[in-house]
């Protein structure tokens, strides 16, 4: 008995791809990793959204001694300002998620536009845009973010823009490939010959086909954006007026939490970040596997083995 080539839930290339619209939901339903990931993300996002109402204590009020130990009233202890950790986690997740989503939105807009333009128009536009993309792919991310934060000052807005500007490349590439294949479809050619404008074709025919993949890519980008934010905050370049998960780690680090035995000031925020990133990776990875089977094809080349885009983690400041 040979080892099965097919993974449960994978889409086989030879099947005609019908409507892609239902595929996101279907993938989530059928693949356990995606289901778990989505569920976790939902819980975390809800928790962060509802932080102002759900948080057990006030964010600025000191409720006990500095680095107070975990107790029944404070399950995760207190941070270096005597503030309840659970409250901090909820509010911190809020800021981290905001940065993640906003930066991803920026990168989605840029990457999507470039990807669609390159794939749809092809030719010289394609080549130029891809060269630009290749250049951005090789910029070392965190050093650039550090430099920009140094020159223009650390503020939430700057950080969001900088992260967004560095993350669009994978989106652009993936979208471009997808748009290229859609463009060759019969109905698109027919629409062209009937005189439909480019805009109309892009919005009515191309984008809907591309959307699911864009979603998959977006989810993965969110993971990276959140990681970048924690990295910047840890290096002291985060917005000093807002508490994010990354800032919580930095505060504890600066105040000798580890050697004081206050592991609970450092472990939970990082764990939460890891969980968010893991969930995003599971969901995004599952979606990508489902939507783009060519990524799993039997070509023994590194690029096709990247189950995550290169800019995902290998391209990151480690």
């Amino acid at each position, binding site marked *: 008995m*040979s*080892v*099965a*080539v097919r993974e449960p839930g994978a889409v086989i290339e030879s099947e005609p791809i019908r409507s892609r619209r239902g595929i996101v939901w279907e993938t989530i339903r059928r693949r356990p990793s995606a289901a778990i990931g989505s569920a976790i993300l939902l819980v975390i996002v809800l928790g962060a959204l509802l932080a102002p109402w759900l948080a057990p204590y006030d964010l600025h009020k000191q409720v006990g001694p500095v680095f107070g130990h975990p107790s029944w009233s404070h399950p995760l202890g207190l941070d270096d300002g005597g503030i309840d950790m659970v409250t901090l986690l909820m509010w911190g997740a809020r800021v981290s998620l905001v940065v993640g989503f906003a930066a991803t939105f920026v990168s989605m807009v840029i990457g999507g536009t470039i990807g669609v333009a390159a794939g749809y128009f092809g030719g010289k536009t394609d080549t130029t845009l891809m060269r630009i993309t*290749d*250049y951005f792919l*090789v*910029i*070392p*991310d*965190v*050093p*650039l973010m*550090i*430099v920009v*934060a*140094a*020159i*223009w000052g650390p503020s939430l807005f700057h950080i969001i823009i900088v992260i967004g500007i560095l993350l669009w490349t994978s989106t652009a590439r993936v979208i471009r490939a997808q748009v290229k294949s859609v463009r060759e479809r019969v109905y698109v050619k027919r629409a062209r010959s009937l005189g439909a404008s480019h805009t109309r074709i892009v919005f009515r025919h191309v984008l809907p086909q591309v959307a699911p993949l864009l979603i998959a890519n977006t989810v993965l980008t969110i*993971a990276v954006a959140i*990681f970048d934010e*924690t*990295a910047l905050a*840890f*290096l*002291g*370049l985060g917005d000093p007026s807002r508490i994010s998960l*990354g800032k919580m*780690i930095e505060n504890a*680090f600066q105040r000798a939490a*580890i*050697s004081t035995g206050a*592991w609970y000031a*450092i*472990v939970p*925020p*990082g764990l939460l*970040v*890891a*969980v968010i*990133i*893991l969930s995003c*990776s*599971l969901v995004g990875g599952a979606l990508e596997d489902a939507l783009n089977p060519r990524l*799993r094809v*039997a*070509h*023994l*080349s*590194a*690029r096709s*083995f990247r*189950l*995550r885009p*290169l800019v995902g*983690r*290998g391209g*990151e*400041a*480690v």
Partner: protein
Amino acid sequence: MRGADYVIKRIAFALLTVFIAVTINFALFRLAPGTAVTNLARVPHATPETRLALKREFGLDKSKLDQYFIYLKQLSRGNLGISFENSQPVRDNLKTALINTIPMVLLGTLFAIVIGTITGVLAAWRRGTAAEGASVTTALAFYSMPTHWLGLMLVILFAGTLPTGGMTNDFLINPSFWQHFKDLVAHITLPALTLGLVLFGEYTLIVRSAMLETLSEDYILTARAKGLRPAAILRMHALRNAMLPIATLIALSLGYIVAGAILVETVFSWPGIGRAVYDAVLARDYPMLQGAFLVLTVSVVFFNLVADLLYFKLDPRITE
């Protein structure tokens, strides 16, 4: 001569990218707001002679376009300016920093490969069992952890057993070679381990996929039918097929890792290039920043080129 054609194209592309990187590096630092950034002769406590020399070398009173060409000329000579912080040539500072970072990064990559290979093989060989799930999930879990946080976790676990800061024990006065070696190994372990843990996930997935590919092929069936032991099969066929993507991945990762070991170096106070960038930012040492940034970008381009060429050499089935 399709082969040479490809190689030349990739090298040309790499050179072009380096050129663009150099240009953008220039723009980033000369066109930024504030004279502090643009006035690269402003080395604190420098003699008037030094300042004058720098002004001449980098044409700081000329137009931006002139400055650009002068910048290229100085770059071709390896002159990266003088650091604000210690008034030494940037090139020398960077050299020391790079020499400190590379062993740590190489060791970390080694850890990642070893752990990744073991878990990947386990996952593929025990396909469909709990072991596979556990293996892949562990890989993904570590992959998702913020690097600096993982470093701090290791500090929590190993403080007292292994040194958690610096590259050597500076108080060892005139140590013997063996003492010095032991000291270095002790200090390099935790940072390299952090890197390894954070990176091995990718190798796991690659090895697993490569092995799954190979294991499903007919000649494996034949080998098993012939009675070859599993280890032999693994060794001879499956792992060999994973070598190409692994080699390419190493090359690709190295380019970025050297650029990015900032987080690990900050946690462990490792005096390497990542920390050099960070310290340069804190001290607003713009010549150092500019030089470091350039070196990092070039290293990434270089390793991407190596990856492309490896890919080309080792995989005859290339599609471009």
